[in-house]
């Protein structure tokens, strides 16, 4: 079955929290397909998503897709639940979705968008520099005019899936202090990458290049437009990471439920001990609120014609990240020693939630963001 064909593009999405058969079906299909795959690499995962018609479904409504951040988040949720850290989040949910909203902005962007929409190309975004938080302005990465040409000095850290990416989106600051968004093809950066793995298995890389010559094609946006584009991608990424975190939390809650029902000590299953029953229900409560807020975050992104309501996204992020720490710690505790063994999947979820929680700063940061 092809999802894009199933979706009535004219209708758009139902209001949030309205149970919807199409979305449910979509969730089930993606979840089942990913569940069948197990720990696969990205090419296998993207082949499955492609077969489901997912990349078409992610197109804007004007082009026959479902388009919304909510749909992208739904996929992220399922990826998170399946324990998969994939480039989908940055490449399709954040960058692809953004490019589709500014369709027709030039041949280079259209070329990149086409590759992403086919599920063949992969793009990533360099968000972190020296600071622990991703930079949103005053980048250390500098774009300079040298005679007739542009040159860029890049210093970026922890670029996710950099070694796999065909395109690298690089936020930079010009000599006049304005923001600029630069894109590089893989030939321009791949040799200079210093790759390593993150604690959740995500491949990442640092990148320092001095005096890289650029052509006009490399420079996508300047000033306010660049700012707006970065904000848009960042907000979507926040919503997508929230969705992934909720998926991973759900997997941990499910694993804990199953384990409490199975593990026997003192002649009874652990789920007979009232102390643990209450603790488990507290996990469900935390998860439920996080699910609500993750959904709200992607709705906020969909809603934001003039940019998402960032205060709202930050509130959602606060709740989700707080929940991620709580659920991962509680699930680990209730499993006892076996949860710490790397042969069991629990530890991988624990680390995934840690990475998701720290990408944009912890929950304190989500609160402080609005006071800065």
């Amino acid at each position: 079955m092809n999802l894009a064909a199933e979706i009535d593009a004219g209708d758009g999405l139902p209001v949030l929290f309205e149970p919807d058969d199409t979305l449910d079906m979509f969730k089930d299909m993606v979840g089942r397909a990913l569940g069948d795959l197990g720990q696969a690499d990205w090419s296998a995962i993207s082949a499955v998503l492609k077969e489901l018609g997912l990349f078409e479904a992610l197109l804007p409504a004007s082009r026959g897709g479902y388009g919304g951040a909510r749909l992208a988040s739904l996929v992220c949720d399922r990826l998170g639940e399946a324990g998969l850290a994939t480039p989908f989040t940055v490449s399709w949910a954040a960058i692809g979705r953004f490019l589709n909203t500014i369709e027709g902005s030039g041949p280079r962007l259209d070329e990149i968008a086409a590759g992403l929409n086919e599920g063949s190309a992969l793009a990533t975004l360099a968000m972190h520099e020296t600071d622990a938080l991703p930079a949103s302005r005053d980048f250390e990465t500098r774009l300079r005019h040298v005679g007739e040409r542009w040159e860029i000095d890049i210093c970026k850290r922890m670029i996710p899936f950099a070694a796999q990416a065909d395109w690298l989106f690089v936020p930079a600051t010009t000599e006049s202090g304005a923001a600029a968004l630069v894109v590089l093809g893989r030939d321009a950066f791949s040799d200079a990458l210093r790759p390593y793995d993150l604690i959740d298995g995500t491949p990442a890389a640092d990148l320092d290049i001095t005096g890289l010559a650029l052509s006009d094609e490399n420079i996508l946006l300047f000033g306010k437009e660049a700012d707006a584009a970065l904000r848009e991608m960042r907000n979507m990424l926040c919503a997508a990471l929230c969705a992934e975190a909720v998926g991973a939390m759900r997997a941990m809650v499910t694993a804990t439920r199953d384990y409490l029902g199975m593990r026997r000590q003192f002649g009874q299953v652990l789920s007979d001990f009232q102390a643990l029953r209450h603790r488990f229900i507290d996990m469900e409560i935390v998860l439920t609120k996080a699910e609500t807020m993750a959904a709200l975050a992607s709705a906020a992104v969909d809603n934001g014609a003039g940019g998402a309501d960032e205060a709202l996204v930050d509130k959602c992020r606060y709740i989700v990240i707080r929940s991620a720490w709580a659920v991962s710690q509680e699930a680990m505790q209730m499993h006892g020693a076996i949860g710490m063994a790397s042969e069991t999947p629990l530890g991988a979820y624990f680390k995934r939630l840690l990475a998701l929680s720290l990408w944009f700063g912890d929950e304190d940061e989500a609160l402080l963001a609005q006071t800065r």
Partner: protein
Amino acid sequence: MPQFASDGMRALFTAEEMSFRQEVRAFVAANLPAEIASKLMGGLHPGRADVETWTRILHERGWAAYSWPEEYGGPGFSPVERYIFEDECARAGAPELVPFGLKMVAPVIMKYGDDRQKAHYLPRIARLDDFWCQGYSEPGSGSDLASLKTRAVLEGDRYIVDGQKVWTTSAHEADWIFCLVRTSKEGKRQNGITFLLIDLKSPGITIRPIITLDGKHEINEVWFEGVEVPVENRVGEEGKGWTYAKYLLEHERLNFGGMGFCKRELARLKAMAAETMRGGRPVLDDPGFKLRLEALEAELLAVDMTNLRFLREVAAGRENALQAPVLKIISSEIQQTISELQTRALGSRALAFNPQGTASNTPHHYAAENYCNMRKTTIYAGSNEIQRNIAAKGILG
């Protein structure tokens, strides 16, 4: 200016205790090898060689078996002196001495072992000629330890041991393991348990690594297949192992402090926060972080001082049902909180993965790895849920 209340407040320590602290501090400063200290100050875990080196240095001074009474070659420290000793050593970056030998099997041998066992094992434990590990837990027996199944059958002058232990810390580095084994299935299950000392080189023992989520090889599975253990390796009587294990719990009830380690990690936390930038300024100046750090310091002070209070109470014979479980709970939780805040301080900079025991050529604080590793503290040594059950039973009946 002392950095912590426990360093020098006059109301907290006697003059003798204060001068004892100075003596220990000076000794550690002069004798702890710098490469070991810098390793631990960088967040790395010590290896067997580091622990050996430090144990031998302390042994020369007569302090290796610092928790033992004089009659067995210990220095006969009071509980508060032991606290001070651990505090000074850990804060200077000294590795923890092997607890399985010094603090677990040795007191059992002292109390229930025969003369030959005392003469043979105790000096070897003190010098770390033998590195011990603890074989209690089994796949089916964690919190409910008395259900253990590893079987030992007496045949002539030896036991034949078959079964499996699991989560065994350091078995891969150890020479000996002390085990609780089942010698009878009759009657009350606690009465069929026996305490055996087993040489890990015995034929029939297989040790398999368990890698934990932080990527470290710290714990193991230990399999026993027809392992022959001379009957003289049994401590005390057959079927009394549970009593001995319980004695150990009670004897060492106030062992789980780790306050010196906490203070060392707190200092590391501050260093991490000072060097990491968040939103354009050092994390140490970030209002959100500052609040958490202040709260943590208050919390650590409360735990540390409660620890000291319990030691004084117990030394004065005022034991109660709360002390041991409460100390285990609050000490383990504060250790976790510190490692969590270290990870939060580094934020995204904590995420590059660098498991303990693998070479690293970049500066790395091991904060996230240690945060993952420290989840163990509320699980092992009687999980915190079990501690709450014990405390509740003691108070509510």
